[in-house]
């Protein structure tokens, strides 16, 4: 049996679902943050798969997608830094990392 694009997309989708389930189920904000990273990486995986799938006339993968992935990784790194800083600040203010305890958005 050969590998098709759908295999990769399925894996990517499952990883996304796992990440989304984590976001919905876990209460610890750091773990929620990790799950967000999982979701981002799932998207990256599908992008790379598409890159490999769409071989151009020159016989090479479509590197635009890889550049996009590169950007996503970069932004994700920055996001992690800012996000973790916010979490630290939040922890200092509230002494908790539990989202259930952080409900100031309520009216």
């Amino acid at each position: 049996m050969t590998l098709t694009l759908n295999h990769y997309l399925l894996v990517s989708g499952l990883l996304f679902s796992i990440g989304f389930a984590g976001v919905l189920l876990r209460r610890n904000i750091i773990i929620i943050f990790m799950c967000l990273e999982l979701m981002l990486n799932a998207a990256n995986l599908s992008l790379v798969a598409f890159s490999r799938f769409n071989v151009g006339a020159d016989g090479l993968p479509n590197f635009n997608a890889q550049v996009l992935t590169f950007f996503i990784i970069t932004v994700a790194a920055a996001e992690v830094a800012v996000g973790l800083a916010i979490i630290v600040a939040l922890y200092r203010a509230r002494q908790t990392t539990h989202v259930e305890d952080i409900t100031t958005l309520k009216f």
Partner: protein
Amino acid sequence: MNPILFYLFSILMLGFGIAVVANRNPVASAMSLVVSFFCLAALYVGLDAYFLASIQVVVYAGAVMVLFLFIIMLLDLKAEQRRKFNKLAIGGGALVALAFAAQLVGVLGSHPRGDKPFPELKLPVGESLNDLQHVGETLFSLHTLPFQVIGVLILVATIGVIVISKRELK
């Protein structure tokens, strides 16, 4: 790529992904995440994206994970106390995630265009794929402006992090 390797790394990746969600201890979650990312890097290799695979290892498995661990240590987070489950919330969350996955399967199952093997790369004889060069060329020729913007973004993020952290030190 060898399908066996693909299945191996995929299952490992998904398994450790589930471990990230399921572990009570944040440190264990973080370590599972590292493994998951390593497997993902392996999948990238299988897709002939060597540069991205190495970036994945360096940035995610390296820098990001260190940050996570550092913060977990800094905040001295213990394993979660067994709190009272809100069964409705858990059930609902799982249901949505499952529904999402099911929809995915449905979409892929009815998508014949993707149900084809990956085409072969046409490379000059005796050369391997120099993807680093191609990514670099694409990045600096076609996407220069976004690249610059990303640079600014990182700068802003750096400043922002300092500001957020500093304020608390007052």
